[in-house]
């Protein structure tokens, strides 16, 4: 019997995640410090226009914060057997996953929004499309958190396994999403891959929000579509692998 996911149940999970996981080391290291170090390491010695700086740092911040903890909640909870507690409760897999995504999204949204507006202020830039930027941050933090939750479907209780897989996906995507190298400067194969990366659309949306040139609709539609796709893929994958975790 299918039940429409109940938001209240998901919010309970999100609240629990925020209380337990988001003060932990990996969030601070992989979600806040790493993107800054990574970005400045690339920046030193290069001339970059302020718009590219804001777009690049925004993309890095939201990408890393969204995917810092969401992939490791499931293996952690498998190891501590708390996943079993959740599975015994009257809450569906979909509600559980939406809760994990909402928790991750809340953190990613808060950190990214502060970072983006702080960097913009330092560089003297003001978004010309404020609401579009805000919508972009909401959509991207949901979408990237869903990717993190999808990665966590790997049926393991060892977080390092998940971190390895997560790193394999996270870092290459940075290079093909227009953060360091504009998409139009990528080789042919790179351009094709960049279209498959949701990060490309967010970076493009940030550029639009600050410059006002171009159209945001493809980016918004793409982020929305990717969000739905990754949520459904995470749901499908977790349903298949959950019995192996218990």
């Amino acid at each position, binding site marked *: 019997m299918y039940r429409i996911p109940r938001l209240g149940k998901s919010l309970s999970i999100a609240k629990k995640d925020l209380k337990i996981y988001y003060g932990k080391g990996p969030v601070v290291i992989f979600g806040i410090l790493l993107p800054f170090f990574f970005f400045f390491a690339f920046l030193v010695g290069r001339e970059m226009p302020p718009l590219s700086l804001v777009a690049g740092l925004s993309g890095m911040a939201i990408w890393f914060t969204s995917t810092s903890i969401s992939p490791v909640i499931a293996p952690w909870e498998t190891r501590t057997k708390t996943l079993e507690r*959740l599975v015994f409760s009257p809450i569906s897999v979909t509600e559980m996953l939406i809760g994990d995504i909402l928790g991750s999204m809340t953190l990613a949204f808060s950190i990214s929004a502060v970072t983006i507006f702080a960097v913009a202020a330092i560089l003297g830039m003001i978004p010309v499309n404020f609401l579009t930027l805000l919508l972009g941050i909401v959509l991207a933090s949901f979408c990237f958190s869903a990717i993190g939750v999808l990665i966590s479907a790997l049926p393991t209780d060892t977080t390092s396994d998940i971190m390895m897989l997560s790193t394999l996906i996270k870092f290459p995507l940075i290079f093909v999403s227009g953060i360091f190298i504009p998409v139009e400067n990528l080789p042919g194969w790179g351009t094709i891959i960049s279209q498959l990366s949701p990060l490309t659309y967010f970076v493009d949306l940030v550029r639009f929000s600050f410059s006002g040139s171009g159209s945001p609709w493809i980016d918004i539609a793409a982020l929305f579509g990717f969000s739905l796709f990754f949520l459904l893929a995470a749901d499908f994958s977790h349903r298949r692998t959950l019995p192996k975790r218990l």
Partner: protein
Amino acid sequence: MGSIEANNLVKEFDDLRAVDGVTFEVNQGEIFGFLGPNGAGKTTTVRMITGVLKPDSGRAYIDGVDVTTDPLRAKERIGIAPEEANCYIDLTARGNMHLAGELYGVPKKKRKEKSVELLDQFGLADRADSKVKGFSKGMKQRLILGMALINNPPILFLDEPTAGLDVASQRLIKERIRKLNRQGKTIFLTTHNISEADKLCDRVAIINKGQIATIDSPEKLKSTIQSTQSALVSFSGNGLGRDKLEDLGAVEEIEKEGDKYRLYGPDPGEIVEEVVDFARKENLKIISLNTSGPSLEEVFTHLTTG
């Protein structure tokens, strides 16, 4: 229809048939023990009944709700205390209670009141706002039991509720189980502790190699084994030789247990009469004399080995 019903449940993992046609019914208000050796299919059966695993075939019902088609509605009617103390150690005891309440859809006000009440009942009121990280196993187990009761469920599933606990915690939990049962709750008790099942359960099911070997009340199960009827006797003084007792006609076998002798025979009553006569004749003082039938453990061993 019973509170819990398993109807021909089957579950296979790769080539292994872990549960093979398990059928039973648990009556409302009953304490039902579920026993079996490791790997017998206990956990898989419980997971199917509680809606965590889908059976390959067969049906399970909780309070008349089909677990296989509507697991969420079925789960709302049960409270579960798994063996592993799986509460969140980074949350406080109260935080864990509140989370459990939220997951079971208990309204906020009720959730807060019930948390206070249960933490008090399980002797955790003074540690309510401490993180579970510093709790002993007994405290965690009591908290888990409290969490299982947050939604006041009519049916409770308890998995090894006293395993590895100190005597005081064991006693508290057993008392609570009896009290909950007196309040009308149906209790499904999975345990390795056969003497605990013997003392607590109205009926027990023994599962072996994925199939139910037997279901009955502990006393009826014990009466199915006749070969181990015995009398346990202790005399004053140390000079009594075993060979003298072997002359008793009703005794078939003798075992020395510390300062006592266990005398086996088909009629323990006759053994008692002969022992009393023997003591008078030999001018010995009997310190203790008890008859005993087979234990539930012997029934379990008989059904699960060989």
